[in-house]
């Protein structure tokens, strides 16, 4: 507890207007704590005022919409009022009707299935890659080579999804570099960017291209935190390269791996949004409709607000349950998890 010593309070607060007794002896320099709320307010109001604008923005653009999810239980009709609030008050409550319609909608289940398949696929084919890259980079002795590779592979993280998809189109797409070369070699290019069957591979490849290097940073940090003496001791005991990897490196990485795994599982219903919106037309809805795009196309494009809100709420609630469960399991396994039990 490095609570700020009460100097400011003592200086700022005039003693006169305080009805509460001041348990304060003038002999001791600065008595801390045990102040009345008023005194603390008087001391801390600038801090509150500083946090207020950001808190207000979050209130308006985060918490109010969160509460606004109750329109999932309404037959929300934007035309019964002048503005959304008016319309909300005027719309009819229909209980779980939207959810019934949603759960009966085969398109919704298609979207859920696509989302979960992509999550599972990426868990297997994307999640381990940054760990491997970190191990690889860590084993490169030359600092210059390592620095150069790092600078290059981190870069795509700073590109927008529009750019990432664009680079893929221009390199692998039907009019892209690869197709040109294939045609010149007399081969038939295949439609990587438009083939629904391989779409899952494509989106994973894009995600890898964008975030492989970035994802490795946190593992590199964890690797550098491993005590080198452990390696030396293991080597002295005759552990070879792979045994050291297994008995020293991986246990050192485990907390980070578990943390990221939990976060990924908690996010199982989100696989990225812009990436799919951008490519949904190219490969078709069957392959590219995920929960987020479903919400967009069902709600905003076709104005079925209640249904869209119901799908969004479903996703948020399931996501919350998932992350709390995953974290609980992690605690049970003795890991630290995302947040500690306060």
């Amino acid at each position: 507890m490095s609570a700020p010593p009460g100097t400011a309070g003592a200086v700022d607060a005039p003693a006169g207007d305080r009805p509460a007794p001041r348990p304060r002896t003038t002999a001791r320099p600065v008595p801390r704590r045990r102040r009345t709320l008023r005194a603390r307010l008087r001391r801390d109001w600038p801090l509150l005022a500083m946090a207020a604008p950001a808190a207000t923005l979050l209130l308006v653009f985060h918490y109010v919409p969160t509460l606004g999810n109750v329109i999932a239980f309404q037959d929300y009709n934007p035309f019964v009022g002048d503005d959304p609030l008016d319309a909300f008050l005027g719309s009819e409550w229909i209980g779980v009707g939207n959810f019934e319609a949603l759960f009966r909608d085969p398109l919704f289940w298609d979207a859920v299935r696509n989302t979960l398949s992509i999550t599972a696929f990426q868990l297997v084919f994307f999640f381990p890659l940054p760990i491997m890259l970190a191990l690889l980079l860590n084993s490169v002795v030359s600092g210059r080579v390592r620095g150069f590779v790092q600078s290059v592979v981190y870069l795509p993280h700073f590109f927008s999804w529009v750019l990432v998809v664009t680079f893929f189109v221009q390199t692998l797409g039907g009019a892209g570099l690869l197709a040109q070369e294939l045609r010149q070699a007399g081969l038939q290019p295949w439609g990587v960017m438009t083939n629904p069957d391989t779409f899952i591979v494509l989106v994973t490849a894009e995600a890898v291209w964008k975030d492989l290097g970035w994802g490795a940073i946190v593992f590199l940090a964890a690797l550098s935190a491993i005590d080198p003496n452990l390696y030396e001791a293991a080597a002295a005991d005759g552990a070879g390269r792979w045994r050291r990897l297994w008995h020293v490196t991986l246990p050192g990485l485990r907390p980070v791996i578990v943390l990221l795994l939990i976060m990924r599982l908690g996010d199982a219903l989100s696989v990225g949004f812009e990436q799919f919106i951008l490519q949904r037309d190219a490969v078709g809805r069957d392959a590219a409709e995920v929960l987020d795009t479903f919400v967009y196309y069902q709600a905003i494009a076709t104005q079925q607000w209640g249904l869209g809100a119901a799908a969004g709420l479903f996703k948020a609630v399931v996501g919350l349950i998932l992350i709390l469960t995953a974290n609980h399991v992690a605690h049970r396994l003795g890991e630290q998890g995302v947040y500690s039990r306060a």
Partner: protein
Amino acid sequence: MTTYAPPPVPAPGPSRRRRRSDRPVWEEPPSPLGLFGKGVVLALLVAAVLVPLWTVLVTSLASRATIDEAGGMVLVPREIDPSAYLTIFSGGDVTQAVWISTVVTVLGTGVSLLLTVLAAYGLSRPGSVAHRGLLFYFLLTFLIFPGLVPSYLVVTGLGLKDSIWSLILPSAISVFNLVVIRAFFMNVPGELIDSARIDGAGELRILTRIVLPLSRAVVAVVGLFYAVGYWNAYFNAVLYIDSNDKFPIQRVLQSYILAGQSPNVSGTPVNLPGVTAYPPTLAVKMAVVVVTVVPAVIVYPFVQRHFTKGVITGAVKG
């Protein structure tokens, strides 16, 4: 030192210790095959990132003849023909979009940084009034999300539709960034703050005179992250912006390249003055890509210098 004979010049081939290597003595010397494999993997990774960037850049500077000869994307630069860039910057939708994106990025970064720094400072003093509650209020946003539909309704309900503020305000506060900055603020030695307070400085003065100068690096990095975020944002423009003259660059790029690829996309193709005449369409398109990439590439070295140094790990420690 001087008595040591210089190390024998290594014969070509597998030398046991390459130069004055950082490799610890207990570690086995790398096998040539392993080294080769590593080299190949790293080279492929680097190529996978750089080749797409390279071909886009070269094509944007290529003349019609070069593009025709290559059959599309160009890999080997033949000449430097800036006409594509002249075209897109001679007015028209791309110029306008670059302007809009610049305004949104500058304005948004300013707003975000100001509010985030203030809030981070307001939350940096454990034991202050409502500190725990307020912190919880901010952190709770990590766990619960509003969802698309209600957010859309709130933004439109506030009358922000088709205003560039709809590209700024809803995403102005990143609590993650706030936590990062707060962690740095909390590391500022309390003695400094106390002495300033004894000298009569108020909180705002302490923030601007003492805490901020000590945290310049982290604030700069967070600012750059915000800037990249604003520059890269695409979908909120699809949601909220209706008029073509308020489209940010990402939206225009999308309608150019991806809509060109898939005719179903509802966005209408952008009309570019003068395209019919000179620079080949492909070069113009690639020039737009380059213009969209450039800010990220410029900003990148500044961010990179710092982010491995604890910005990320500091945040993880929270």
